[in-house]
């Protein structure tokens, strides 16, 4: 198990470096992660949690899901490397409710691959950001409606009390 520990730590470090450096190279470590069984992946995440704490384990889960995007887009494009813009992904991660995050980001990744197949990376990135701003706009609108509803209720209550 010691060997597996070391292998995994190197793997995690490499994935993190690829993402942080915005390196346009195929991360074989991600393929390696996808080649693991679900039970192995869960075990590795548990081990990170035990060793480094819950925050680190959640971070690792996030890093792997990003790695998964790189892998999926790479699969679609043969050896050509591409992935959705990191900043857009990061924004979505914070904006979307946890229970909806996986499905919606998954849909975007799938569609991003199709746009990329048909057009250039720049156009695919532009398309991706358009979708992200759609999310931002919807979230803002929902938030404003909620605030408006509270203000309106507050006024009604004040009128009733006075």
């Amino acid at each position, binding site marked *: 198990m010691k060997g597996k520990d070391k292998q995994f730590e190197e793997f995690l470090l490499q994935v993190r470096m690829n993402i942080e450096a915005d390196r346009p190279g195929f991360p074989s470590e991600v393929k390696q992660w996808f080649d693991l069984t679900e039970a192995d992946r869960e075990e590795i995440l548990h081990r990170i949690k035990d060793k480094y704490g819950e925050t680190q384990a959640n971070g690792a889960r996030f890093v792997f899901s990003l790695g998964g995007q790189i892998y999926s887009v790479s699969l679609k494009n043969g050896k050509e490397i591409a992935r959705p813009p990191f900043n857009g992904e990061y924004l979505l991660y914070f904006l979307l409710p946890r229970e909806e995050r996986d499905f919606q980001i998954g*849909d975007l990744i799938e*569609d991003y691959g199709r746009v990329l197949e048909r057009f250039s990376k720049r156009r695919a990135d532009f398309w991706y950001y358009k979708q992200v701003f759609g999310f931002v706009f919807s979230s803002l609108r929902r938030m404003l409606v909620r605030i408006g509803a509270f203000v309106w209720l507050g006024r009604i209550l004040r009128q009733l009390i006075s």
Partner: protein
Amino acid sequence: MKKPSNYIGEFEELVLLAILSQGDNAYGVTIRQALEEATARSVTIGSLYTTLSRLEEKGLVQSWVGEPTAERGGRAKKHYRVKGSAQSLLKEVRAARQRLLSLEPVGGIG
């Protein structure tokens, strides 16, 4: 269980019809593509999911989670199905529209 709403907006109606057109393969990507092909308008995934969650709250659609796939970076799909109550509501809306269209417009159209 929540009682289904008896009012739907135009976009909600289109989304329901798009789900119906996709059968068992109705999830975010396919629904959005069906909408864009039918309306020739761009639909963002954000606005689509806002509508889908509203339809779910109204008790008009039900969803279930599919298997994660590598194509989606190991993320699962959320599939949607239109409930029977929504199908009758769609029929009512269509009938109401037909009744209104059959009325003689005062002063004519245009």
